[in-house]
């Protein structure tokens, strides 16, 4: 994943200005910055959901908006801060719907739900589930679709102490697969412990790579 001088405007308001960021295979990156600094926008951009107004963005070498890049979309898991569930479907139906759309068996959906510890409540409608349960179901999506690029917004919000390590486990899984993770969190100590390096966004203008003491050494490999 490589961004070079990328800017994004939303409803004419500039949100990101000249961002340069390269994320390598097997790497996990933590995004930090104050409210409104453009963290979510950057994540949505990395998910190919936004097109840069200026600058160049590539995913696995494929230019954003190209056919090759579109074909890679199913390998991206984006978990935003609002749950992407259909409120009137049960948790199981929500995941099975996704499994079928991506050509996976129903059993894979059930397995993913069990993995996040929700097998017992799988037949409850999403509307009747707590924020934390919906959040975990969203994370189960990221288990199900076996992503090469994992994007988590406010990764630790709404998760209890027993399920917070789930985030780290997911990141490790993606890295083992040869993919990369970019994670936003306001739980800075937790994030620092979990990622290879931290990237700070200041006012959407520049991304400064601030390597903190807990950072694992970054091995330069193929750009993701």
């Amino acid at each position: 994943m490589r961004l070079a001088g990328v800017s994004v405007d939303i409803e004419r308001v500039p949100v990101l200005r000249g961002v340069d960021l390269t994320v390598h295979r097997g790497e996990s990156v933590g995004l930090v910055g104050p409210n409104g600094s453009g963290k979510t926008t950057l994540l949505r951009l990395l998910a190919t959901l936004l097109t840069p107004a200026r600058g160049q963005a590539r995913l696995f070498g494929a230019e954003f908006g190209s056919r090759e890049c579109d074909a890679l979309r199913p390998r991206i898991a984006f978990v935003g801060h609002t749950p992407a569930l259909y409120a009137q479907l049960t948790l199981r139906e929500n995941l099975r719907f996704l499994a079928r759309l991506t050509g996976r068996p129903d059993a894979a959906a059930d397995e993913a739900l069990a993995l996040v510890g929700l097998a017992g409540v799988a037949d409850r409608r999403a509307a009747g589930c707590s924020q934390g349960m919906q959040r975990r179901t969203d994370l189960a999506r990221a288990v199900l679709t076996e992503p090469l690029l994992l994007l988590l917004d406010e990764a630790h919000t709404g998760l209890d102490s027993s399920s917070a390590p789930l985030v780290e486990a997911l990141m490790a899984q993606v890295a083992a697969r040869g993919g990369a993770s970019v994670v936003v969190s306001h739980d800075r100590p937790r994030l620092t412990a979990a990622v290879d390096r931290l990237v700070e966004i200041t006012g959407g203008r520049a991304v400064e790579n601030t390597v903190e003491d807990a950072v694992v050494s970054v091995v330069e490999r193929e750009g993701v």
Partner: protein
Amino acid sequence: MTAPAPAPAPSALRQGVELARKDLVLELRAGEALRVTAPFGAVALLLIPLGVGSDVPLLRQLGPGMYWVIVLLFGVLVTLRQSAVEGPAQLAVLRLCGVHPGVRLAGRAVANAVLLLAFEAVLAPVVIILYDPELTGWPWLLPVFPLVAAGLALLGTLANALAQGMAQRTALGPLLVVPLTLPLLLGATQVPQAARYGSQPALWLLMIFTLDFAVAVAIGLVARHLEESA
């Protein structure tokens, strides 16, 4: 730098069926189309005679036309129902699933058509009981129901996509759809008349089909452009 192989994707048909099925399950649970909009349409059919006079021959003549006007006006609301709206988060998931925007619209249109057929089926006995319309040549109506449902479903799908994320969605949608449904209305009302007077009802069916086909092709061509990227 080698790009990884894309995940194997199911056929567009299978995706479309899944999307339509999801829409129908959601509607079944929300009940907006059949438990709210359909009774609303029935009330309209009940009020019209009170406005124009409950004269039996007059109502007999008005019945079929009123039925189709109500189907078109209220059917638009069926296509704009709340359960047919994806939030930004859900839309992001669908886009990342690799579902082509055309497939997404097709799935929605199929679900709309099924619901509109049900909507027509619910209102038909109401108009028969209240207006006692002449029913000679009724077998010709059998193809009219699905053809009108399909046309309205397609136009409604387009309007819903155009008004995506707008506060004025349910106000704007009908204005975009209803003027273009004029051929559906004329076709639906003329088929039984043509059958009764021995002219050619098939021509009117062809007219409705032409509209359905043209809208489907137009949506297919522009679907790619409806993909919001900003």
